[in-house]
């Protein structure tokens, strides 16, 4: 289902509009991260991953672990637009009896590889999948997205060590480097820089890209495929709240949702 990057940018715009509508409707959720993750998820589902929305459990599909589960409005929109479920379902996000939980649950929605939300746990699960895939001589690749603030979590670094030890070259990590977390700037809450040097020191292959340049995302994943002795970390530099001027770069929009007026303004800009 690979499309040209112009088409993908159009999809991204639609996804961002979906996100704003979902968050308004639900009155709950994480705005800034959902908007910063959008291009990464669009690139993965429409330009990178082997997957089949009609057969979500296809054995050879590429796996995606969204460790930063709070950005799931973006994930749900991309899944719906890929054909995993009808678009109308997006309206039920975070509501009672919905399969679109406030944080994604594997048992509730097909297409969700693993339940996530509590931070720091995703990369390790992706490592387990990559290790299992190698044991079985499978050819699928494992992708994992994490937020930058997840680097505060010990569990994440345990997995970074593990992936390097077992040379999990079938694993690609994409870091949504949007520089914010609940408390404000990531470097104020807990400095994680120099991030690239950290991954290099942990024996990873590291790529630095613009996380809103869909071509760059697709190219970097291709480059990761060619690496056969190390896991790859792609540091995707993004803007929190991307696409909505009054949200961009603002930590206050991490876990805040737009009201009616703000949503109308945002949709106008998108």
């Amino acid at each position, binding site marked *: 289902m690979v499309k040209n990057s112009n088409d993908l940018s159009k999809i991204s715009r639609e996804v961002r509009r979906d996100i704003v509508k979902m968050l308004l409707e639900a009155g709950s959720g994480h705005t800034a991260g959902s908007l910063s993750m959008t291009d990464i998820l669009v690139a993965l589902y429409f330009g990178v991953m082997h997957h089949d929305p009609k057969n979500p459990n296809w054995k050879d599909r590429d796996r995606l672990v969204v460790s930063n589960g709070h950005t799931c409005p973006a994930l749900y929109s991309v899944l719906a637009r890929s054909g995993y479920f009808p678009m109308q379902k997006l309206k039920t996000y975070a509501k009672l009896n919905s399969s679109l939980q406030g944080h994604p649950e594997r048992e509730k929605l097909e297409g969700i590889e693993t*339940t996530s939300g509590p931070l720091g746990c995703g990369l390790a699960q992706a490592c*387990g999948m990559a290790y299992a895939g190698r*044991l079985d001589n499978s050819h699928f690749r494992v992708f994992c997205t994490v937020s930058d603030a997840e680097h505060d979590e010990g569990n994440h670094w345990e997995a970074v060590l593990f992936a390097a030890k077992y040379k999990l070259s079938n694993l690609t990590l994409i870091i949504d480097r949007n520089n914010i977390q609940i408390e404000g700037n990531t470097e104020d809450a807990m400095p994680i820089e120099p991030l690239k040097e950290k991954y290099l020191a942990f024996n990873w292959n590291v790529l630095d890209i613009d996380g809103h340049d869909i071509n760059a995302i697709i190219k970097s994943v291709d480059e990761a495929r060619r690496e056969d002795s190390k896991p790859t970390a792609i540091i995707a530099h993004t803007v929190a709240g991307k696409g909505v001027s009054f949200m961009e770069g603002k930590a206050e929009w991490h876990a805040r949702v737009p009201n009616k007026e703000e949503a109308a303004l945002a949709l106008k800009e998108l």
Partner: protein
Amino acid sequence: MINKDQKINTKLFDKNPELKSIRDGFGEALAQIGEKNKDIVVLTADLKESTRVHLFAEMFPERFIEVGVAEQALVTIASGMAKEGKIPFTTSYAVFSPGRTLDQIRTTVALNNVPVKIVGAHAGLGAGPYGSTHQALEDIAIMRTLPNMVVEIPCDYEETKKATDEIAKNKLPSYLRLARQESGQITTQKSPFKIGRAEILWQGKNPQVSIIACGTLVYESLLAANELEKKGIETIIINNHTIKPMDERTIIRSAKTTGAVVTAEEHQIDGGMGSAVSEILSRNFPVPIEFIGVPNLFGESGKTEELFKKFKITSKDIIEAVKRVILRKNS
């Protein structure tokens, strides 16, 4: 007297009974199962030898994964493998996993509903001289509150082999709690065993008290029952090895027969196996209950048998609890 249907070890009450290691039973069973089932993988957090998975590691090096001293990674990596169809056994001390890894177990194993087998070794007071930092007395309470989770506590070497075998096959998130100390051989290869079914090991003719025990306290309970019988006090001993799902039927039926219960476990009284029994009986058939376990205290350094005495969880303490509960029943 001993329930003959249980085919338990006839030399159980000998002066110097044969002692065997529960964790050896686990390690040996796992290596055997690994031979038959290629989906079994074993992960450890730097505790290969003392959790007895070195046998498996030697036989199946490609299916043995050392994660280092990293219990959170231990559980979450296993979760990813389980989702891909593997049957991962994670081994650490119970204080570390489930102790440190509740969030990882809750979200990525129980809620995710993938068949990771959490093995908590040195559970209870078995870490002895290492002190309270290494003595897991809260793990039953933690694990029995998790939806989807099976919680299993075998009482001896043979039962551990059977429990390991069943847990490998049950396709469910599961917790296997293992004691460190060697224990008397109660069951034999021929003894019946099924996860979720409590076994009546001792059946008095006119029993006055049901003693419901798990793990190492099953042996202490049998010693108590044998002594009590000599004094004319008849009891029923239930090996309540599955904490979740608990065999409510057997427990309720026994309480109806005796009208008094003593529970016994190597764990905090709060939230443990006895608490689960009391929840069942309060809902269905309330009777007086006495609880043998650690009374909301941390352990300390010492030999395990010394700690059993200090925290009053020996056969003698069970005998006293039986007498107390009979008084309460008759008052």
